């Protein structure tokens, strides 16, 4: 049986290699992927250099801001730039939408700025051309074009009957064909991922991504499984179709529905089932809670008064002027802490909705394997929502640490009522270490994507077990 599968695979490969149109299509995809890899590499080096330069400049600015009051320094703030990895240029993921830098300042947790999507036209709605997009959507299209008539042509020409008369079962023919087309796909993906890894290894020296090898391997694995599923499905459709035309039509409809319509619909569906507040409402709610308290009856003034009484009691003094520390610093930090609490509360509510929206989308991967590979690809490229969220949390922690340090210095080293009189200097600025970020291990991210993993496994199971065993060897 094995040798028959290999014989059929070899025959198919020979036929593919003899078709000029397919050679042209293959060359096109290989050139496209090669170009995407090269452009990604160049872009990565440029962006990495720009980010590193900008980050160093901001550090120099922070340290060299001169002597000033710590609270002014807290408002002077600094910038953090999201580090680029080569994988983020393989799959842009949400990077296009989430912004590249953030301004850290007292009182206001700012949003990320400079979202690449802001500079694009409507065309970005169809997805930017990344290597991941080529593998997720264009390569399946190529698979459709090379496989749609693999069985129908044999049926129309009568060679299938001749094969059957040799005692070759349809299952063997199917497996042989799938093997051949899988090998063809692998001749594209294996060199691509090796190239991606080698470029990554030669450039990844800043420890932002500590598991590049594992991530590249997981990406290769996920894409291999997805493309194998797509290949098997396409060959199966060709087997089941009565004509090449109907096979092509079926496969194109499948591609459009599962690659374009369902992903867009599932995003809308998630938003409809789990609506999120508008940005305006979200920010108003936060401001309201900060001003009036999360219990609606705990205004800022009441909170300050309570804090004041607590400190007076603790230090057994009658007036805040008698405190050995600057109460303004304590008050500012208390305001920060409360603001952080409010932000954390509202963000947690919002993130819960995002998670539910994501989950609704993930379930659609059971009918559209593209969604599974798209989500897993973003996860392993560290450009998914969870990776962004982790970076956002780390920048938030850094901001909180920076502000707390400034407020504490103000509280400990200046007097109540003094402002411009007290000035801190470089010694204080240096206590704030430069921001360093390491992306969490890919394995940490896997727990969020169990639906996608189960979905891909089911697709494999269907293709590997159910379909070949459902063949009839009868021709009537």
């Amino acid at each position, binding site marked *: 049986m094995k*040798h*028959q599968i290999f*014989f*059929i695979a070899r*025959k198919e490969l*020979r*036929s593919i290699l*003899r*078709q000029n149109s397919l050679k042209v299509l293959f060359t096109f995809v290989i050139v496209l992927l090669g170009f995407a890899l090269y452009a990604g590499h160049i872009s990565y080096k440029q962006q990495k250099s720009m980010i590193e330069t900008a980050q160093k400049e901001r550090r120099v600015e922070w340290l060299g801001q001169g002597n000033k009051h710590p609270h002014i320094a807290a408002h002077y703030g600094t910038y953090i730039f999201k580090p680029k990895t080569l994988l983020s240029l393989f799959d842009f993921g949400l990077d296009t939408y989430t912004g590249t830098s953030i301004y850290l300042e007292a009182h206001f947790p700012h949003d990320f700025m400079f979202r690449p999507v802001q500079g694009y036209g409507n065309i970005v709605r169809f997805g930017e051309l990344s290597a991941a997009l080529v593998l997720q959507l264009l390569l399946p299209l190529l698979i459709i074009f090379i496989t749609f008539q693999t069985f129908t042509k044999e049926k129309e*020409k*009568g*060679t299938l*009957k*001749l*094969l*059957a*008369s*040799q*005692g*070759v*079962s349809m299952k063997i023919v199917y497996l042989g064909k799938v093997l051949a087309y899988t090998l063809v796909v692998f001749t594209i993906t294996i060199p691509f991922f090796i190239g991606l890894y080698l470029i990554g290894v030669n450039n990844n020296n800043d420890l932002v991504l500590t598991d590049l090898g594992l991530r590249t391997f997981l990406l290769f694995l996920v894409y291999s499984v997805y493309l194998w599923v797509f290949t098997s499905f396409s060959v199966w459709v060709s087997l089941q179709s009565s004509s090449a035309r109907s096979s092509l039509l079926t496969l194109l409809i499948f591609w459009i529905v599962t690659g374009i319509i369902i992903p867009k619909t599932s995003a809308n569906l998630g938003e409809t089932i789990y609506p999120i507040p508008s940005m305006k409402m979200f920010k108003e709610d936060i401001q309201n809670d900060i001003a009036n308290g999360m219990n609606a009856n705990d205004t800022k003034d009441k909170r300050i008064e309570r804090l004041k009484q607590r400190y007076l009691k603790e230090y057994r003094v009658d007036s805040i002027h008698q405190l050995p520390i600057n109460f303004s610093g304590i008050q500012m930090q208390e305001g920060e802490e409360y603001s952080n609490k409010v932000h954390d509360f509202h963000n947690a509510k919002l993130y819960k909705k995002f998670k539910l929206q994501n989950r609704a989308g993930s379930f659609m991967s059971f009918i559209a394997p593209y969604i599974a590979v798209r989500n897993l690809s973003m996860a392993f490229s560290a450009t998914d929502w969870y990776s962004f969220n982790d970076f956002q949390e780390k920048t938030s922690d850094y901001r909180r640490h920076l502000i707390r340090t400034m407020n504490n210095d103000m509280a400990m080293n200046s007097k109540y009522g003094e402002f411009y009189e007290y000035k801190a200097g470089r010694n204080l600025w240096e206590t704030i270490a430069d921001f360093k970020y390491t992306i969490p291990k890919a394995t940490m991210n896997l727990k969020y994507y169990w639906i996608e993993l189960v979905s891909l496994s089911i697709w494999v199971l269907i293709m590997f077990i159910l379909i070949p065993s459902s063949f009839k*060897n*009868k*021709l*009537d």
Partner: protein
Amino acid sequence: MLETKDLTKKYGEFTALNSLNLSIRAGDIFCLLGANGAGKSTTINLFLNFIEPTTGKAFVNGLDVEKNPKKTKQYLSYIPENLQLYQDMTGLENLRFFCGLQGGNQSREELEALLIKSGLQKDFISKRVNAYSKGMRQKVGVALARAKSAKILLLDEPTSGLDPKASNEFSELLLEMKEQGVAILMATHDLFRAKDTGTHIGIMKQGVLVDNMTSSQVTFQDLEQKYLEHMHN
């Protein structure tokens, strides 16, 4: 070598083959005559296990076709009316492919010799099949049967559309194989070829074997008359 017992095939209300009893031994060439839809191809398809019988049994080399679909195909070689090979491969590559599927590992020289022995011109051996005539493709089919050392040859109107020379060449190949003890079942419309080549002749009508004769016992005129009588009745 080939045998049927009350072999019947029905498609709904339509009976394509009705209780066929047939026996073909090694060295026999059994020619099945009949109009279109008489049941000739159905009989061949049942021997190939391409279709399931409604009732009855078909045997190849004593083995029940339905129970031993793979094993029985090892003894068979099949040449349909319009043998289609892989167009983008040469005759030699096609032969190597089909032999390889059977586990054959003949050398290039052996396969070339088989093609030449089967009547294919030498300069066509390495040409792609899309340049072949129907007769040339049939010769590749015969070469395949030889390479496989098939004990049984099933032919479904193999000479239809061939010019008289090619048809004659094909008949000679069949006679050669008959001498080697191959059992041949050939469905055909060609009365002359049936009389000329066959050892036995059967006439089918509406799924029924209405006549079964030994070729040597009838003249061509007798055969033609019998055939026309059956067709008109």
